[in-house]
């Protein structure tokens, strides 16, 4: 319990430090927000008016404290462009990114579980060798290269999947799945390769333990040994990795969202930065940082499930 509280405290410090750093950085970005709001022809009087209304001239710390206070109430301010509440934009865009992240993690972990389990069941066989080879290739393929190649083969040549039109999940489930299939594949290849390698090597180590020999001696079926005895103790590194990767992907799907023009928060981030809309940038980074903390806390809790000794310490 003490361990969990300490971890949680540490993660909260990370949360505040990251959001604070970003608000400091945003202060360094050149460009006059008033121009973004009113237009290039803003008069000095109008600029002063905007500064007064948005309290832009306050010190960074004051602005940050005010931002945190509002953010805790779910109020991220209004976008410089279009004067839309940012929370509304987030509400529309976050599900898109989360769908991408979750689906690609499911694909990646699924690949790793199957390949690593079968690979350690029949080590150095065709499947094991093939999976290791494939994983190495997937790790070495840049995400955007894979995205373009998939787009060319399955979008342009075969017309199986749309190249850029995003269908919202509320409109049509199959249409939605079709429009995220290629992006999900492009995102999941690299983590899948890494998970496979890590899990395979951890499984190999676990399967040399005495209790595995014991389980074999009892006459348990190989499948049961692999899943019940082998998998769980081997999941530590993979769980940690999956946690960190998931957290990073929330903000790291920018390139894929750009290539496939998906309306997620990555796209929002890039538009906000290009438009000097630093209120929106701060909101997205805040969400990403919260995601990082939540996921890492969940991973810490999972350790307890994987190995109860962690909590007893």
């Amino acid at each position, binding site marked *: 319990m003490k361990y969990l509280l300490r971890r949680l405290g540490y993660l909260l410090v*990370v949360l505040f*430090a*990251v959001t604070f*750093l*970003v608000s400091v*950085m*945003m202060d*360094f*970005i*050149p460009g006059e927000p008033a121009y973004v709001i009113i237009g290039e022809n803003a008069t000095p009087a109008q600029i002063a008016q905007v500064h007064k209304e948005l309290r832009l001239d306050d010190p960074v710390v004051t602005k940050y404290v005010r931002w945190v206070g509002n953010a805790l109430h779910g109020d991220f301010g209004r976008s410089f462009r279009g004067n839309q509440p940012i929370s509304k934009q987030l509400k529309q865009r976050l599900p898109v990114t989360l769908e991408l992240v979750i689906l690609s993690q499911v694909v990646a972990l699924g690949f790793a579980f199957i390949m690593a389990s079968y690979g350690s069941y029949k080590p150095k066989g065709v499947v*094991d*060798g093939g999976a*290791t080879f494939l994983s*190495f*290739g997937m*790790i*070495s*393929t*840049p*995400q*955007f*290269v894979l995205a*373009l*190649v998939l*787009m*060319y083969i399955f979008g*342009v040549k075969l017309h199986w999947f749309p*190249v850029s039109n995003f269908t919202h999940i509320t409109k049509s489930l199959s249409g939605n799945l079709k429009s995220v299939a290629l992006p999900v594949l492009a995102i999941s290849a*690299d*983590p899948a390769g*890494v998970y496979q*390698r*890590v899990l*395979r*090597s*951890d499984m190999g*180590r676990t399967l040399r333990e005495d209790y595995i020999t014991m389980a074999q001696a009892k006459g348990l079926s190989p499948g049961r040994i692999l899943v019940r005895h082998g998998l769980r103790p081997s999941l530590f*590194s993979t769980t*940690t*990795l999956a946690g*960190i*990767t998931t957290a*990073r*992907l929330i*903000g*790291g799907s*920018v*390139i894929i969202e*750009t*290539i496939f023009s998906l309306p997620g928060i990555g796209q929002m*981030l*890039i538009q906000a*930065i*290009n438009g*000097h809309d630093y209120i929106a*940038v701060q909101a997205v*980074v805040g969400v*990403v*940082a919260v995601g*990082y903390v939540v996921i890492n806390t969940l991973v810490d809790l999972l350790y307890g499930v994987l190995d109860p000794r962690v909590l007893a310490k």
Partner: protein
Amino acid sequence: MTIVEGAVQAIGATPDEEEPGPKARRRIARLLALAWLALVSVLALVIPLLPAPKPGVSVGKIAASPFGHYLLGTDQLGRDIFSRVCWGARISIEVAALSTVIAFVVGVGLGLLAGYFRGFLETVIGGIADLSLAFPGLVLLLVLTSIRGASAHILIIALAILLTPTFVRLGRANTLAFMQREFVLAARSLGARHRRIMLREVLPNVLPSVSVYALTAAASVFVVEGSLSFLGLGIPPPTPSWGSMIAGGQQELLQHHPHMVLVPSVVLFLTVLSLNVLGNSRQEAGDRSRPVGSL
């Protein structure tokens, strides 16, 4: 690859290598990787001397297919792709090499100090490194480029900042492990100064295992440099880089001229693959000296 690669290093989970296949096959893979990297570097070095068209000049024929009159074809503006790939290699290699070297020197230096002196210094350096691993790297890159405008120098600095924390962690972890060894104790009992122990006893042992990661890190820089081109934040035109060539050909891909994207993509893929193959084999070779656990 950068995202997960960073994560792997962050938790110190280096898969131990049980690659199937005989040793000879792995040696061939290593030789091929070396040969490819050598070919690319040599072409990048000598391209100004070759009688190839300049990278910004149109040779007349637009979107020519590869293996015809032009070795790798021409792009949407009629520029020779072979020449652009070679010129692009110069800038892509420069960015990857310099940012990795800066991060390596700074990171290992700080990690060595943190691991050697422990205490407050370690808390501060370790804390900063932890924090920057949680920081969205893309935001840093975007902010730096929007302040100073995209250029090779800004890219190198930004990427070096992003790579440093992992080198700090690795450097510190390895220092901690070697500090327990008898030869350090021996040096200390002989009255060696801190500087001598750090530089002559600990550092030479730390270097091999960290340089393995440097190859992987360099591979990831190639990828990030390319990714940024998609966001309009990479090396600005007209300078060709692999990333900007791939990003620039994106539209043409959909109009059935895939070679403009595929040629630089294959070159980039082979380079990243080669660096990973070498990084991997160095890891195997370094295993004997590698300390237990790298967290």
